[in-house]
């Protein structure tokens, strides 16, 4: 049965030091509130998985939550670098990390394979590139029917998947609309799934459009209004492109970043408190 928990309690129970975590979202519906709670609780040694690690992953990496990152594109979309990710990769700040790098196609297929209970994903990726030389988890197999050489990567089977959605109903069914990335696959591939939502309603289904993930695949639902900020929730609020553009200036210098995180994230009671501080100081 789906549990309805406070976000802090859900994180405390399920996001444990050393676990692998996929907090997914492809530009849209990124679970920022959950990431901020992980930082507030000071959880460390995570193996982070994400196609497009963005600001919330930059924050977790900079605050020392991660031992490893499995990813396919690590930048601030349309803006430039993620400076904490770069500093970790280039200078081992705040500590050395393992980086397992893929292409989007590989990551997407690896999630789909995990959702389907497969040990690996088979596709036609990476041909001719240098990636197989730097990532030993990219391997090649022969098609038993045609003899064609195909690419294999291990399926993603995260201990915990966290996604953000527009709605859940009282049974724990999840409803989302807009760009859905790999979130459904991440939930179905994970041992434990936590979904933060804008609102909890009586009933959701697909009759008016959108996509439902049924309740028996969802372990925990947490209400977290505005919980995707500075990403967005289609139909609820827009992407704060302005905040994405300011993130470089906040995060470029490590000390300034630490100070900012302390003031806005670590010392806030919760995500709503964090947002109120940002608003008071003119960040939104």
């Amino acid at each position, binding site marked *: 049965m789906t549990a309805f928990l406070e976000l802090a309690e859900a994180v405390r129970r399920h996001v444990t030091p050393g676990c692998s975590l996929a907090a997914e979202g*492809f*530009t*849209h519906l990124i679970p920022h509130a959950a990431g901020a709670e992980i930082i507030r609780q000071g959880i460390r040694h995570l193996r982070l998985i994400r196609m497009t690690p963005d600001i919330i992953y930059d924050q977790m990496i900079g605050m020392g939550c991660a031992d490893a990152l499995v990813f*396919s*594109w*690590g*930048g601030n*979309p*349309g*803006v430039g*670098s*993620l400076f904490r*990710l*770069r500093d970790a*990769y*280039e200078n081992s700040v705040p500590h050395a990390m393992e980086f397992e*790098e893929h*292409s*989007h*196609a590989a990551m*997407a*297929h690896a*999630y*789909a394979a995990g959702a389907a209970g497969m040990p690996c994903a088979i*596709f*036609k990726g*990476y*041909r*001719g*590139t*240098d*990636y197989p030389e*730097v990532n030993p988890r990219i391997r090649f197999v022969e098609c038993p029917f045609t003899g*064609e050489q195909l690419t294999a990567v291990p399926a993603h089977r995260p201990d915990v998947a966290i996604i953000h959605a527009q709605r859940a109903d009282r049974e724990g069914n999840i409803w989302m609309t*807009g*760009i*859905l*990335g*790999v979130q459904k696959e991440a939930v179905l591939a994970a041992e434990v799934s936590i979904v933060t939502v804008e609102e909890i309603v009586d009933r959701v289904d697909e009759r008016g459009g959108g996509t439902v993930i049924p309740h028996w695949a969802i372990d925990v639902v947490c209400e977290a209004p*505005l919980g995707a*900020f*500075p990403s*967005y929730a*289609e139909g609820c*609020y*827009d*992407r*704060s*492109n*302005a905040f*994405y*553009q300011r993130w470089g200036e906040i995060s470029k210098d490590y000390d300034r970043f630490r100070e900012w995180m302390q003031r806005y994230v670590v010392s806030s009671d919760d995500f*709503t*408190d964090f*947002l*109120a*501080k940002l*608003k*008071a100081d003119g960040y*939104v």
Partner: protein
Amino acid sequence: MSEPAYHPEEMMVVAAARLLASDDVVFIGIGLPSKAANLARRTHAPRLAMIYESGTLDTAPTALPLSIGDPELSRMARSVVSVPEMFGYWLQGGWIRTGFLGAAQIDRFASLNSTVIGDYRKPKVRLPGAGGAPEIAGFCRRTLVLLRQNPKAFVEKLDFVTTVGTRCGGRSRQQLGLPGRGPEAVITDLGILEPDPDTGEIVLTTLHPGVSAETAIAATAWPLRVAETLRRTEAPTARELEVLRALAPSHESNIAGLIPSARERGR
């Protein structure tokens, strides 16, 4: 009538836009490729089907998106599919005609590096990485490459092969199992380079107005081949510049109005 003044980057975007036809289906990255495709759709290619890797099929944003997944892209899309469907069915399945790529480095066979500058384990600069590029370069029927021409970008040897061009490591696309022609044109701020049909090496075929072949040669770290008959790009028209300059990302979000102030929360 005198020609309007323009920036070399605007010439580059305009030249790229002109290579997109109205019946084209184009997979677009953020930055200059996105500007070029949006310009094309607003000028000579109104039926251009634009695809962003976030899963938006045949979208028509009214503002220039900042990211590949801006709200505008999904709201204006004919269809929004999951990312596994995008990369599996649509891209690998061969349903996308043109891929539009940028990079930090390019070599003479138009293979690209967008992964690291320097050594992979200890790079001078860690770039964002591959994203969709290896498979976009592999499985679109053709690719267009957009990047500024200078010796740091047009290199003898890539620091890392993120995507394969016309050939790579002495092997042809066919030998590597890659369908399609690969790069058809490399559009720079100086001109356009196109692959020699026999060798796959990119050759300077077109110069933008006011640029000399010597400038392009000096901006390339390998001995750049120049076509016997060089074409000259037509300068951007007033209309093209007007549309291009009106393209801007939307920075408006309704988020501020939705956040309760500290006082409201304490009530």
